[in-house]
């Protein structure tokens, strides 16, 4: 019936009706209760930043360190020595950036076609792609690995990037967002003599900027954090992404936890900051059409 996006917008202002009759005291209790819960939820973030600046011994001191220490540089150096961390960060950033651009283009084009054109086979094709949302990724893991081996793509960046470019969730997200675009806009573009592709670039994309931002953040996060697929196709330390490199360090005898945690902070904190900066687009874009009847 109603879409979520409108819900989010109207929901911004406080609603009298829902909490009428409750006193101020309730608000303070609710707020402080949630604040305690939130503090508990955020402890891992705080602790991660603190722990990354301590040596392995200090991480496991009793009492545990609760304030920043002086070993950050040392930890990063040790990380650099064991897994060429600089290279690994570049791998991650490069792969995620290229993936975001390519997958963004593939998903946006497909989402636009599914939302704004009527063509033979549209619904069955969309249905097949949505099947990809339901079928567990593990089903394809083994043959996909063999395919990569046959293509001699193991240990290459394209092996990480290519298989997930047509991400069903991305296509779904774009279709939902494109549906909100008024048809009149497209028609007037055509009246002005726009070709179909130029129409897409010049008329469709500009007003879709918030949705594209959401898609972009989602794709980047997805690729940046992806673990199992890179773990399978990247067999050589020099091509590792951050999660694979960090996981490879764990469980080794006398694991250098100071170094691992510093690396984990490097992987997690920038993403959290980017997310906080762009969250408005991200949350509303991600939830567009998430709850339809």
């Amino acid at each position, binding site marked *: 019936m109603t879409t*979520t996006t*409108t*819900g989010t917008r109207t929901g911004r202002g406080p*609603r009298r*009706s*829902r*909490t*009428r009759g*409750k006193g101020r005291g309730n*608000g303070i209790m*609710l*707020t402080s209760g*949630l604040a305690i*819960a939130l503090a508990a*939820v955020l402890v*891992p*973030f705080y*602790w991660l930043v603190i722990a990354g600046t301590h040596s392995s011994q200090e991480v*496991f*001191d009793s009492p*545990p360190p609760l304030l920043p220490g002086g070993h950050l540089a040392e930890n990063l150096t040790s990380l650099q020595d064991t897994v060429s961390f600089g290279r690994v960060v570049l791998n991650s950033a490069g792969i995620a950036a290229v993936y975001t651009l390519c997958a963004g283009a593939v998903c946006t*084009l*497909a989402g636009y076609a599914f939302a704004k*054109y009527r*063509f033979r086979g*549209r619904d069955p094709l969309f249905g*097949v*792609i949505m099947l990809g949302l*339901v079928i*567990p990724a*593990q*089903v*394809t*893991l*083994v*043959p996909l*690995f*063999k395919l990569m081996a046959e293509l001699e793509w193991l240990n290459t960046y394209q092996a990480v990037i290519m298989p*997930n*470019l*047509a991400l069903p969730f991305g296509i779904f997200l774009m279709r939902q967002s494109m549906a909100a675009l008024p048809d009149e806009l497209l028609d007037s573009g055509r009246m002005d003599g726009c070709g*179909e592709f130029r129409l897409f670039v010049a008329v469709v994309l500009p007003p879709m900027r918030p949705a594209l931002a959401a898609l972009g953040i989602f794709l980047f996060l997805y690729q940046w*954090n992806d*673990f199992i697929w890179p773990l399978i196709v990247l067999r050589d330390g020099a091509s590792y992404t*951050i*999660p694979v490199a*960090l996981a490879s360090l*764990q*469980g080794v005898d006398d694991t250098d936890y100071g170094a691992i*945690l510093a690396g*984990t902070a490097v*992987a*997690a904190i920038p*993403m*959290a900051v980017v*997310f*906080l900066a762009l969250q408005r687009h991200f*949350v509303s874009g991600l939830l567009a059409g*998430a*709850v339809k009847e």
Partner: protein
Amino acid sequence: MTALATPARTKPAAGGPQGTRPPRLTARRLAPYAFVLPALLLFAAFKLYPIAWSFVLSLHKTVGGVETFVGADNYTRLLHDPLFRTALGNTAVILVVQVPVMLILATGLAVAFDSAALRARSVFRLGFFLPMVTGLVAYGIVFSVLLNEEYGLVNWLLGLVGIDSVPWLVDPLWAKISLGLALTWHYTGYNAMILLARLQSIPGELYDAASVDGAGPWKSFRHVTLPGLRPALLLTTVLSTIGTLQIFDEPYVLTRGGPDNATLTIGVYLYQNAFTYFDFGYASAIAYALAVLIGILGLIQFRVLGDRK
């Protein structure tokens, strides 16, 4: 130039109201195919083809890199495999315990986020959503250190209030609880956001009407909020179920499936068979069993939660 060669037959018709079909319309007809083509090709090559191949593999046995056709052998082996049963059982426990706890928490959070009495709402919405941004490996590592039995921050904090240290990751039962805690930490905020989005589209008049009828907060929650949330609850339940059945990263990073296979999930078991023992045929059979399970559970949930008289 063109006008000279073929006088006034094909080209000029584009401008005129009648005559042959203007090229623009043909372009408009072909454009959607061009737009979906990259997605379809990639999807067919890297999703559909492997799905079909996986089924073929599941009918083969791999010994020393050589594949022999064995029919349904892998599937019969699956039925009698105690480790698969363990993995299935562990996954089921997460499904029956962790998912409901998380969804109840998420509903509570969503209702709190929606309440006008709550101050600094955007801070809370964001803060609880933040764990979703953290990569699975990153949070697996953080949790494994935080929950360390002897040195972890959590046991130290518990010690401050006089609670004996808990063997979080080394005791089979506590390892399951730890896994549940990590999952709850990661996904509750995300589910709360989906529920909140739905909550905000419930018309306020319904609450007014309920309070006119003398309904207290609990009654209006039961008779207005819950029914209104139904589609969102269906969505979050189905998504969480699919996610739980496929669960791999958390147990792999947190406990490697241990101790004593207490956190061995279907996903981890599948991975072990494929990439530790290189038994691709058996791994594919596990994958197909998993897909069938997801299909069945998804259907049941649609039946139970989706039906609305």
